[in-house]
């Protein structure tokens, strides 16, 4: 109740809640494609690689969105270039490129600003969300949802069967970089809510939770978005009640939801799997006894 009172009273809380719910939703949506394409590491890489972009934008006095998208996409291109033009495998290329970008980011930020800003970018500070940040998040959110809606067919077929999509003429590589651009935009939108370090959790955990609960991509996307939003609401609530970091609280709520699905999912959950295995075993034993 106190939370609701506070919510009605303080506009900064309203902004925080709206922003983090939007972030939860778009992370959930994009996250589905990230985990189905086996690109969880890529999500981690891009989220770290926006750091130098944010620093450069700050130096130039422009909105950090532009710099972040630039370095995010550069990272995706760099990783693709290294893994396609050498014997270095994709995961190693990811490790090389994104840490380099991240290191550049840390140096740039330590050159121009105090360490508190670095802390906020790394870990988020949702209570400091300004109106302009909220609007940027909203615009990014609309772009993401519209893009996924418009290209749903193409995203589905190129994720499930890239050979087929190439065979009938879809530009798989373009789709990959398109998705990387969306991923970068999502990361930028998430900076203030959960921060660079924990964005990957919001991308992967709600999507993975949904993945355990359904066999339909469209349902998975809606569930994942819902889990993202629920995590945002309850995480923010807990962070206020117990006065802990909001990003971490949001992430842990989503982890809790994942744990529930991991144990109790009717088809994929550990609990019912064990029960089914036991039953099958006892049936066999009964047969051999009788």
């Amino acid at each position: 109740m106190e939370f609701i009172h506070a919510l009605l009273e303080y506009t900064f809380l309203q902004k925080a809640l709206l922003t983090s719910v939007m972030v939860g939703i778009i992370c959930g949506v994009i996250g589905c494609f990230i985990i189905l394409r086996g690109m969880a590491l890529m999500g981690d890489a891009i989220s770290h690689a926006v750091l130098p972009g944010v620093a450069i934008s700050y130096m130039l006095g422009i909105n950090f969105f532009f710099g972040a998208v630039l370095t995010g996409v550069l990272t995706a291109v760099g990783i693709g270039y290294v893994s396609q033009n050498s014997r270095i495998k994709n995961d190693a290329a990811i490790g090389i490129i994104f840490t380099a970008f991240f290191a550049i980011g840390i140096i740039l930020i330590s050159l121009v600003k105090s360490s508190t800003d670095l802390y906020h970018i790394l870990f988020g500070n949702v209570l400091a969300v300004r109106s302009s940040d909220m609007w940027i998040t909203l615009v990014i959110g609309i772009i993401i949802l519209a893009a996924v809606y418009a290209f749903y067919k193409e995203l589905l077929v190129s994720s499930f069967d890239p050979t087929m999509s190439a065979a009938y003429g879809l530009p798989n590589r373009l789709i990959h970089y398109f998705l990387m651009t969306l991923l970068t935009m999502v990361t930028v939108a998430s900076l203030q809510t959960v921060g660079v370090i924990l964005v990957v959790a919001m991308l992967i955990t709600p999507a993975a939770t949904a993945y355990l609960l359904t066999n339909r991509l469209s349902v998975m996307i809606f569930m994942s978005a819902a889990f993202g939003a629920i995590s945002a609401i309850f995480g923010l609530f807990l962070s206020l009640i117990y006065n802990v970091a909001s990003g971490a609280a949001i992430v842990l709520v989503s982890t809790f939801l994942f744990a529930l699905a991991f144990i109790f999912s009717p088809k994929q959950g550990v609990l019912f799997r064990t029960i089914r295995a036991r039953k099958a075993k006892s049936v066999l034993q009964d047969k051999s006894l009788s």
Partner: protein
Amino acid sequence: MTYAMSVQNLFVSYHGEEALHDINFTIEKGKLVGIIGPNGAGKSTLLKSLLELIPKDQGTVEVFGKSINEMRKKIAYVPQRSDMDWTFPISVIDTVLLGTYPGLGVFRRPNKKHREWSYHCLEKVGMEKFSQRQIGELSGGQQQRVFLARALAQKADLFCLDEPFVGIDITSEETIVRILKELRDEGKSVFVVHHDLSKANTYFDELILLNKELIDVGPVSEVFRPEIMMKAYESQLTFMKQNEVTV
């Protein structure tokens, strides 16, 4: 005349190592064609390079007298089963529905008519009872039949199947062969990468015999003869002979 497939001077290499050397052949329309040869002969590589799914070093490929890019929507490709992610959250009917995508273009979505057509294609392969199952819950043969249904849904003119009979049950194999022959009888062209020599002569009209280079191409009755088949499998046999000598 226009050929279903016309290939000239095709060279393909992987990381600097030559995989296919100077391939030339033409195949008439309306044939059921087997691409055969020993392991590592480049059978799948040939199929993929024909469709420009992998880059070629040199050569021209024409499908029905046109470049591959003009014909893509009319080409149905069935991948090797081992290449697929069978845990993907997609149902059997939605997998078949993917076959209607090439005809739809970018922004149009499949409607009820497309769904009914996909269901009809599922019936053709005898998999309609499984339409709501997740694709990974099926057996290998059932999965292969669903992918054939997807190819049927595309209403293609050229069908390319990469090792469709590997690790599947006999009912599924018979169903697939029957449908491929029906397609051929309707005038469609069908290319199948195949490794089991025992049935090659009953399944196909024409054979492309491969071992990094083209050994022979033509009607089964001409190619499927011991002295010609030996040429493709020679290297393996000489290896065995050498081993016997040294042992």
